[in-house]
């Protein structure tokens, strides 16, 4: 089938303002949007720039806005868009460096601010630390995060204010707060109990809807809110 691609373009070395370029390409319904971008880059315009690596939705490189929603280009098949018009734009809320490439540093800075690593100073046993199947299940959902930023950059609260740590950072915190082997949950809750922590979340759900890993992001945030409210990690 023939599809009409409209792609956001901005080259800081020549453009003052961004613009959109249009391409018509022949596509298979099972093609990924990423395949189309590669095709455009390879055949029409080599300057088109975007990040990608794994091409099957697991590395988190290619978050972009496809027809107005945050998606991974490699996980979005043409047939699922249900239209032959495809609009591709960079994710919102981060500075655009070139075309579809945004500066991810503010996103990672927020991630780092919630102590996203296991903290447990007790000397470990000789073998593994034990953890029951239920305890492991408790935080399974949030271990899936690939830091693609689809969630954070779909959140109107994050658009409003980049100091909001954002759903991805809260997901990372959740993964450790609810890990029975971790000992710094209280510390993380203290960090998130702040003007720019969980209270900037107004349960807008764009994050959950955007997450390519199908993580229940809002639920994770809700559980963190509740842990703060009740003083219990359960």
């Amino acid at each position, binding site marked *: 089938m023939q599809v009409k691609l409209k792609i956001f373009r901005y080259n800081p070395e020549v453009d003052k303002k961004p613009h959109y370029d249009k391409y018509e390409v022949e596509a298979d319904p099972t093609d990924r949007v990423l395949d189309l971008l590669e095709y455009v880059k390879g055949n029409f315009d080599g300057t088109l720039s975007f990040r990608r690596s794994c091409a099957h939705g697991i590395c988190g490189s290619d978050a972009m806005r496809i027809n107005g929603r945050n998606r991974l280009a490699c996980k979005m098949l043409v047939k699922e868009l249900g239209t032959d018009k495809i609009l591709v734009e960079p994710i919102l809320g981060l500075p655009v460096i070139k075309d579809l490439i945004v500066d991810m540093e503010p996103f990672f800075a927020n991630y780092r601010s919630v102590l996203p690593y296991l903290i447990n100073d007790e000397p470990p046993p000789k073998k593994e630390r034990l953890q029951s199947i239920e305890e492991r299940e408790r935080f399974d959902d949030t271990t899936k995060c690939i830091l693609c930023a689809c969630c954070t950059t779909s959140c109107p609260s994050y658009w409003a204010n980049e100091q909001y740590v954002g759903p991805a950072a809260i997901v990372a915190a959740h993964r450790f707060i609810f890990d029975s082997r971790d000992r710094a949950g209280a510390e993380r809750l203290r960090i998130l109990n702040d003007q720019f922590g969980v209270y900037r979340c107004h349960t807008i759900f764009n994050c959950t809807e955007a997450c390519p890993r199908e993580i229940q992001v809002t639920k994770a945030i809700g559980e963190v809110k509740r842990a703060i409210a009740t003083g219990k*990690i359960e």
Partner: protein
Amino acid sequence: MSSRPAPQIGFSFEYMMWIFTRLSGLAMFLLSFIGFAGAFWLGARMYLTNNSFVDIGALARWTFFPNPNHVVNTNIPDVAVGWANAWWQIMQITILFLGTTHGMNGLRVVIEDYIDRSWLRTLLRGLIFLLWIFVMLFGIYVIQAS
């Protein structure tokens, strides 16, 4: 295996306002039911017996703010008396307090969504606080005076 240290509830301002917003929302819901029932008991049902439609605009006003003014402005005679006692005044003042605090805090939240930590924040918080005091005072006066 030792267990995780339990977190302390950190009573930050943001936390308390968050809780307050939820609780006051719930409370207003509850109070509105009481107001609604009261409105029926004291006057609205007259319409029904008169084979006429309930003036829902008025009913809603009575529900949220059972103020004799609101009642007087309607064409139901002699029911204003029913509202003119201490119980309904306390009801009104509670709703007034919850509503304005909830609402003014909401205003603060909305504004602070869009600004950073700065002197501006302090200033706006001050202004909203003043506004809150004024509206509350005016409101209580109106209730008392009617």
